[in-house]
């Protein structure tokens, strides 16, 4: 015998200080805010609560992007193109979508595309498009 069914899991997660600041700036000002690590001075973006390298805390806000450099990319036939991009001024890379990049190549310049309707999270960036190509 096989028992079948489906479960739904509601959730509500607290983003924490640096990610909340990131969300608010994105939603209200279309600005991307990283955070300077209090331990090693790296600029974290996305700004998690702690620096992955040294364990220091996310400190003062630092504006990064919206320009970025493509570090790695892949394409999934059913889901589109994804990438690791380094936002100008940030030390790490951000995992996000590529939009309107006909021929991705590592090292190319990209620019964040902001969503017209924004709710205060990472989806307020629709993805990264080739610099110079406007919609």
């Amino acid at each position, binding site marked *: 015998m096989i028992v079948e069914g489906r479960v739904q899991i509601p959730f509500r997660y607290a983003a924490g200080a640096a990610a909340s600041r990131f969300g608010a700036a994105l939603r209200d000002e279309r600005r991307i805010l990283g955070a300077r690590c209090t331990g090693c001075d790296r600029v974290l973006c996305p700004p998690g609560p702690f620096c992955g390298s040294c364990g220091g805390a996310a400190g003062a806000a630092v504006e990064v992007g919206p320009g970025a450099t493509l570090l790695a990319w892949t394409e*999934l036939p059913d889901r589109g193109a994804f990438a690791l991009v380094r936002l100008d001024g940030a030390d790490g890379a951000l995992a996000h979508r590529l939009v309107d990049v006909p021929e991705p190549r590592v090292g190319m310049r990209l620019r964040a595309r902001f969503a017209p309707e924004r709710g205060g999270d990472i*989806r307020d960036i629709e993805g990264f498009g080739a610099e110079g190509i406007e919609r």
Partner: protein
Amino acid sequence: MSAVAIIGTGQTRHASRRDDVSQPELVREAAEAALADAAVGPDEVDAVLLANMELFEGRALPELWAGAGAFAAGKPCMKVATGGTSGTSGCIAAFHQVAAGLFDLVLVVGFEKHSEGHSQTGMALTDPFWDRAVASGALGNFALSISQYVAERGATAEQAALVAVKARRNAARNPHAHLRMGDLTVEEVLSSRMLADPVRLLDMCPQSDGACAIVVASAAAARRRSRRPAWVLAAETRHEQPYIGDIDRRLVTMRTLRDAARVAYRRAGIGDPLTDLDVAEIYEPVSYAELAWYEALGFCADGDAGRLVEEGVTGMEGELPVNPSGGVLSSNPVGASGVIRVAEAALQIHGRGGERQVEGARLALATGYGVYAWADAVVLGAEAGAT
């Protein structure tokens, strides 16, 4: 630390669906096989360690309801859940328990029934702020890292396909394996469906139902009960930072596996792993990963992994056979996969590998890989090391 050994192993037949058994029954199948192999009765087991990723089956507290399959009632029992390393880390936890003198006999059982849940949903329940909406999932994330590895090290799709072929052909000699494809060719791998550029369907591990168990024994118990124990010479685990974008060229640097292996080799007295080791069972979720792991594990210089597989150095007749079992590319019940690596390495030392036995194997490596967050390295030997 006191000497510790593996004195018995057992595993199920791994398959895409094991509708013939429930999860506790699947666990029992592996547990009974390992206990029989070790000639240990269920009542003699002091403690039980389980490895399972419960989100994949969507059922909480597997140690509670599947623990009965491992004879856990009334005994110390706990669970390890660290993605692909669940199994190797579960084994390492048991080594530590026995080495600390807490127990003489510990049963480790790793299991997963991917067919019963929705693994993709389980994998999607990662970081809610930075991953869920915009990241490409486990496979896409891996493909991103592969693109960096390929760009820097020059590995080719053909070399990756050779790894995929080696795994499935080896699996044809392993009665437990899920994908047994003795006639698979490089051309078939290269023409299989693209999943996430450059990873194709046959470059990728399957999702399997299966379980695997080992019996871990103290030195005294091992010498009393086993003719040829597989001694644990080293067991190392390393954790990584949380966000993929912060890890510098993940597959290229691979510091978790590099660090774990370096320390494990030192503890086990291994100078040159390619010549010193007799066999390796490494956790390769994707064909390209095996190439990257050769470099991280010091089997060759950086950039030389493709040559190793092209020249058959890691084939069954080569200098260092890698994954005689067929590896994760041929069977992947995630919670069990790490235990399978350790069990297969132990099986080689026990000299009971059947058609997949590497003749005279006396020193074996097993590794684990959990998303990008963990890596484990375990060295087993036919002789107890200095402790």
